[in-house]
């Protein structure tokens, strides 16, 4: 064994940690449904570098737009619904963007879709009995008219779900019967009664116990909605419903793209492909040419989508299909990426300095670390021009081991439109 050199002159080297990678910020995961034979792979993520690999997993072809836009690879997540908590939690650090394909519809995306409950009812001659509580439970309520009192002495009583009304059959009027029902607390707890217009004076006849019917419970969405667990990146969805788009666009780190049904999520995919395939910069993709039109060709509709910060493509006779807005949670599309990029660079710079210099816990070293972090900020401000301003302060508040850093940055913003006023004064 060669031991003389290490015996003579042992050297221990201190290697600073290398700079952390931010490559994952440019990667995207597409959520699609599995094709026949791939059902066993639901919940798994596959790396695809071409459409042949994509086609082996799913029939959805929208990933083609990502490749067309310049992406070299996409992650493909096979899913039956949009409860993505488990695959997201177990694949942190592979990608920072998740795009939902048109395999999934609005009901899959939105947490709840309410079809209201229907109250059970029963129509007998000129009287309509309606359950107070909507739902199928109302179908078990029964009403019977017994002929065993004189007209004017009607009474009503509920025992469990059976409502008994005592009348004089053929004599007691609808108005008299309703009055008896309205006077009964036990009956009022179960039903209300209405008289057909103009029929209050018409005599009613006795009948055997009969059930209310057609009561139905509320119907919620088929799935749990879009759930991403601890995933902190950007999620993109597309919908042809402007209401759904507006609701989704307000969610932090959520990009809602208005689409025409026939196009599916193609424009959403293409726009993100252009954003993420730029290896050197984060740019907001203002007015880039888009491959498909989504029938937004009226100013009113465009303004409405813009006001809701819904991303969309505008169709113009002269300029063709143009991306008219790409936003995320009401902010510039680049904002979450730049912030995360900055976080990683700050963490990396501090780690590199500490691992390379093995500093003591002193105010001098805190000032030097602060300077290293401020350099990162200054690069973002002066060189990359990704943020307008940023300040770092490192303080030693605790006794040992841990410093506290406070950072303030200006929010990255995007310039999309100009509103002008021209006065004829000359």
């Amino acid at each position, binding site marked *: 064994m060669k031991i003389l050199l290490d015996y003579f002159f042992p050297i221990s080297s201190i290697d600073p940690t290398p700079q952390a990678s931010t490559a994952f910020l440019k990667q995207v995961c597409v959520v699609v449904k599995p094709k026949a034979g791939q059902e066993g792979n639901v919940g798994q993520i596959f790396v695809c570098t071409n459409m042949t690999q994509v086609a082996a997993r799913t029939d959805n072809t929208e990933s083609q737009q990502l490749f067309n836009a310049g992406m070299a690879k996409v992650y493909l997540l096979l899913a039956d619904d949009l409860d993505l908590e488990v695959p997201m939690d177990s694949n942190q650090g592979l990608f920072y963007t998740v795009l939902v394909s048109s395999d999934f519809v609005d009901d899959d995306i939105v947490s709840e879709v309410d079809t209201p409950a229907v109250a059970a009812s029963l129509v007998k001659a000129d009287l309509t009995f309606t359950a107070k509580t909507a739902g199928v439970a109302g179908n078990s309520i029964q009403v019977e008219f017994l002929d065993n009192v004189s007209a004017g002495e009607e009474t009503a009583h509920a025992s469990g779900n059976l409502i008994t009304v005592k009348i004089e059959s053929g004599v007691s009027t609808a108005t008299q019967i309703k009055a008896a029902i309205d006077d009964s607390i036990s009956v009022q707890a179960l039903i209300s009664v209405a008289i057909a217009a103009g029929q209050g004076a018409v005599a009613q006849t006795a009948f055997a116990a009969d059930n209310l019917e057609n009561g139905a419970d509320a119907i919620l969405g088929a799935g749990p909605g879009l759930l991403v667990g601890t995933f902190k990146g950007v999620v993109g969805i597309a919908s042809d419903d402007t209401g759904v788009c507006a609701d989704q666009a307000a969610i932090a780190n959520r990009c809602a793209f208005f689409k025409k049904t026939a196009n599916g999520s193609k424009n959403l995919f293409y726009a993100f492909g252009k954003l993420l395939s730029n290896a050197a910069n984060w740019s907001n993709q203002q007015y880039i040419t888009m491959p498909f039109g989504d029938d937004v060709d009226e100013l009113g509709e465009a303004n409405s989508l813009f006001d809701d910060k819904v991303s969309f493509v505008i169709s113009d006779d002269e300029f063709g299909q143009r991306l008219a807005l790409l936003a995320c949670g009401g902010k510039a599309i680049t904002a979450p990426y730049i912030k995360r990029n900055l976080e990683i660079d700050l963490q990396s710079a501090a780690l590199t*300095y500490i691992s*390379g210099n093995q500093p003591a816990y002193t105010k001098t070293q805190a000032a030097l670390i602060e*300077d*290293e972090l401020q*350099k990162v900020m200054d690069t973002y401000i002066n060189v990359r021009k990704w943020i307008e301003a940023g300040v770092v302060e490192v303080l030693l508040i605790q006794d040992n081991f841990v410093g506290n850093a406070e950072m303030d940055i200006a929010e990255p913003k995007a310039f999309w439109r100009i509103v002008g006023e021209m006065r004829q004064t000359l």
Partner: protein
Amino acid sequence: MIFKIYNSDFGFKLAGVDYTFTHVQNMTIEDPETNKLVRGGNAGDKLGLPYKEGTKEPKRVTCTIMGMSKELKGVLDEAFKNQTRLDVYCIDRTDGSSKMAKNSVLSTQPQQLTIDDTAESMNVALIFESFDLSEVHKS
């Protein structure tokens, strides 16, 4: 907050590595940037027009150290030869206040200019030039 030399640490950072000066005689800073006022010969108003002078000239930081180790000489010689950017600092160790010349270059070859029997002969004047001077007060 006033910097006192007996409370201060001096040194520079190069490529993320911190080098300290063990013995420092003093640090002086020359900043040629000044705000000036001028007005027309007709003395139109009493406000005048403000402008800056000296913005094209760098700030000069002279750090006079005593003694220079072989390691330090080697690093500074390379920095001078390659015009490597470094950050020179004076940091108050009691509260972390700092004066820094960032992205500076060594203006002159670091060397001992006088050899005699006085203490001053051990001085080496390190002259740095920078356009990015900062002073942060923590108290």
